[in-house]
């Protein structure tokens, strides 16, 4: 059994490389261009959401500004 294991080892390595190379990945450069709008929408979306959060933060900071207590004479 041990002899068969060692004998098959080199065959296993070759099979694995061939199999993975065959199913490794597709190459479709046109998909880069097709996904560019999503990049634009994504960045725009993040800036819009962050912009709204910034606006809300300024509003809350204004409404709940810490007030310095003045001493009563």
């Amino acid at each position, binding site marked *: *059994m*041990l002899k068969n*294991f060692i004998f098959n*080892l080199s065959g*296993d*390595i070759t099979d*694995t490389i061939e199999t*993975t*190379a065959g199913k*490794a*990945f*597709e*190459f*479709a*450069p046109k*998909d*880069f261009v*097709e*996904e*560019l709008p*999503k*990049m634009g*929408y*994504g*960045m725009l*979306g*993040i*800036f*819009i*959401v*962050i*912009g*709204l*959060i*910034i606006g*809300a*933060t*300024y509003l*809350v*900071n204004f409404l*709940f*500004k*810490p007030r310095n207590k003045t001493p009563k004479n």
Partner: protein
Amino acid sequence: MGGVCHRIEPLGSIYARAVAALCLAELPLGSFFFAQILYKERKQKMGLEFLYEYLVQITWQQVVMWVIGGILIFLAIYKKMEPTLLLPLGFGTILVNFPESGAIEPLTELFDAGIANELFPLLLFIGIGAMIDFGPVLSNPKLMLFGAAAQFGIFFTLCLASIFFAPNDAASIAIIGAADGPTAILVSQELGSIYQPQIMVAAYSYMALVPIIQPPVIKLLTTKKERRIRMEYKPANVSKATKILFPIIITMVAAIITPGAAALVGFLMFGNLIRECGVLNSLSETAQNVLANLVTIFLGITIAMKMQAEDFLQINTLLILGLGLFAFIFDTAGGVLFAKFINLFLPKGKKLNPMIGAAGISAFPMSGRIVHKMGLEEDNQNFLLMHSIGVNVSGQIASVIAGGLILSFFGR
């Protein structure tokens, strides 16, 4: 004991019958001798094959995974790179790469209980939210824009990855650029990506490698004069009411505009609310320490269930690691270039140090400290820490929003 004694009926020896009598009398000595007989029986029937029958089933791929697991453990212990995740991940990698490994079944149960349903990342987010102090951001909310800009790498990598992978896998790979482990796990799980182990390893490894990845990119995109720009720090007082309302407002805004982000943002902000409300100190302590540590233990070793050789050792793994590195590089570039763009519109004495844009990635607090350190190297009186930490914190928010947007675009 009586139930197994029928096994010795075929034995004809006086010795065996004596043992049978002892078994029936349920004397402990009988079980010892019984085990001896069984061992001799087995040895006679099979030789010593039972000792090495699994040893010869070990494949070279499993040996490679042991080496990978060992490397992750080495990086965690000796290089102190994200040890909370890399050590359980490394050990789990070794554990699941044995022939007929008995660890796979319990880990599968844990995986189904906590990762397949996205429970563990969300619980971890409660702990992370409880650890974050949004004070620097609240005193200067404009800094959040740099957090947004520093998510550029995610979307650019999405376009690059789509050349090689299906849309859901490309989006899952792109989210490595969020530099946030729970976000990467949750998004890749939600999108049903088959490359989750590679994505996890890439996300956590590159988070730990931020001190190596960011400085060359920053130096390439900035001049020495720009790196020496000093920024004045005028902390504004932030009221307790603001600190309490902030997590609620963020959750509502994010959930209304990007419902896919509701879970991510909501759990993060829930943790922060527990911290800031002031009436749940024990829960805050528990979330920051016990909960975060407990979930981290389960998360690390459970994700390793996917680190089996046949899943991990593919040519795609190298491609994914390369794309993950791209995401981090373009995140850094996006933040720095955005700061330089803003500087075009600012008067001379009010310029920003463009390095703070690089702190917008979510690797908190490492990225903020790197920018501060680089500022001191250029000018030992230039203290950028409060600005860079503020941007770094805003990157946490922006990264989960980016994750929500990705889910909105590609979600099931």
